[in-house]
């Protein structure tokens, strides 16, 4: 996997009291790259050890990144470039900020470990990344779409291969909206225990039976 350069890199080291050197000492090859861009410290880490690194950053004295500011993702215009999941961390006691980026190869399944067990605030943020980018978060208790509806079938809107007006034609979108049953607007969580299960579209039932969203009839 290649991690392309992201423009003006002004140096590596300490910014805002963030000791990025300590990270490379501790985790070695799992730290892919470090940079300071526009004054922000950024560390690229390997997806397989990301959860471990984030937990370490949260709990280690001297790091104390106790506040998860944001979770998001970036899909670059260059299709060769990996998609990046971005964690904005903040240390309230030390008044420092750090950005952790996890590059994900788009030819493989997009999976990272959920940090819901570390920060409950990650719940909706990770759901939004799942909804908008199709990144799965292993260990998330309730990973389902949040802004788009449950049966939305056009894909993940913030991916660069998603056209601005959607994959379907306007006529198809209208047809689907008119043909959808009212149950389509209830969450799987609610439906999985309701009688309407049998009236669900076949693909939805299949997904639920596979336990994709964590609920099995």
């Amino acid at each position: 996997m290649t991690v392309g350069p992201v423009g003006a890199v002004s140096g590596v080291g300490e910014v805002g009291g963030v000791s990025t050197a300590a990270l490379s000492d501790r985790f070695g090859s799992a730290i892919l790259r470090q940079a300071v861009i526009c004054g922000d410290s950024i560390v690229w880490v390997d997806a397989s050890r990301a959860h471990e690194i984030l937990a370490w950053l949260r709990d280690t004295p001297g790091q104390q990144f106790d506040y998860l500011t944001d979770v998001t993702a970036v899909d670059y215009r260059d299709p060769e470039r990996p998609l990046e999941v971005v964690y904005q961390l903040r240390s309230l006691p030390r008044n420092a900020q750090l950005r952790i980026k996890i590059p994900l190869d788009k030819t493989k399944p997009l999976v990272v470990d959920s940090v819901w067990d570390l920060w409950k605030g990650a719940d909706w943020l990770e759901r939004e990344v799942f909804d908008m980018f199709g990144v799965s978060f292993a260990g998330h208790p309730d990973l389902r779409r949040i802004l788009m509806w449950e049966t939305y079938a056009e894909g993940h809107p913030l991916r660069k291969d998603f056209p601005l007006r959607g994959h379907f034609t306007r006529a198809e979108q209208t047809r689907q909206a008119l043909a959808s049953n009212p149950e389509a607007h209830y969450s799987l969580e609610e439906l999985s225990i309701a009688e309407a299960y049998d009236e669900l579209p076949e693909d939805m039932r299949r997904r639920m039976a596979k336990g994709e969203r964590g609920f099995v009839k």
Partner: protein
Amino acid sequence: MELDVATPSLDARGRVTRAPLGVAHPGDPDDEFGAEPMLVNLGPQHPATHGVLRLVVELEGERVIRCIPHIGYLHSGFEKLGEYRHYNQIIPLTDRTDYLSPMANNVAFALAAEKLMGIEVTERCKVLRVIACEMSRIISHLVWLGTTGIDLGAFTPFLWSFQERERIYNLQESWTGARLTTSLTRVGGMMADVPAGFEAGLRAFCSSFPKTLDEVDTMFTRNAIWCGRTQDVGAMSREDAINYSLSGPMLRASGVDYDVRKDTPYLDYETYDFDVPVGEHGDIYDRYRVRLEEMYQSNRILEQALDRLARLEGAPLNVADPRVILPPKSRAMSDMEAMIFHFKQVMEGVPAPAGEVYLAVENPKGELGTYLVSDGTAKPVRWRIRPPSFINLACLSKLCEGALLSDVIAINASVDIVMGEIDR
């Protein structure tokens, strides 16, 4: 009576069929008044949910077992749209995110884009932006105060706060020409300077506004009904507030003294004299106290900013960089060079150097972050809004657990949400 009910959670007799997840005592099906939980749908068209928010509340008697928020009804894909627009063209989109404080959103985006491009704005511009931010904070908190009062049965403070809000809106309208779609800032400056009479109008507002706040204070702070409805309701501990990534008044009410204006100052906020109110219990009452005090403090900042503005009379407003700031129309029509810059800016936009930036500002609702990624073109690769009310609302399920149904309304009001920002 046989009913063909479409709602999946009701059986043919209109009773709830679904058993709550994780609760192991299903009621007696033959007992008409049995202990079965009831599923109540609140919204999305409900005045007390403050927008198109839908809450599915599971009740045992009057007590909430679970509360599941559903959002997305107002999703407009702003972040996607932003990837197809020049930086200045994104500013009108920011109006429509947190539509109760549009000017503060404009400022937040312009600051992030300027940091990405390495532009330092002028003194006068900074002061005007501080004025814009604090005016927004006051109108946003006034809406919160009024509507929360209504939710809890108090009508009079609603009239007071909306009257005061109207005075700020009039000033905002005289400055930007709009009450909601302000689009006040530009990358490198402002859309317009304040009009004649604006400073006098804002001074008049600043001198009389604290009196209204005092009246609200008299009406609410020691009011037995208000205290009874808000104290110890929807409380969040300090540790939980941090763990749930709350920000703004929600975080400060829980006793965390984090304010972006103090901790990572922007717009020279460190040179203004103001205090950050911090609560103790993290309940609705403390959130009310924090927001009320913030309005007094915003008023103080406005007075200081007006003094500075008077000293900066006639100082330049926009950066003197023709690549970023549009020339006056008269010059663009008469001067060749100005016309070229005008053409290039309008047709090609202003390219930002490749890189990325995250910039947080203290919006009325909490920490509004703007994350911009550029690949060197005039349109961002990614424009991410860190929406404060989206993240604050995510803890609603936890706050409502075990509360009474009537408290759900109060708790939801205390979060101070705006759906335009949550759904984007």
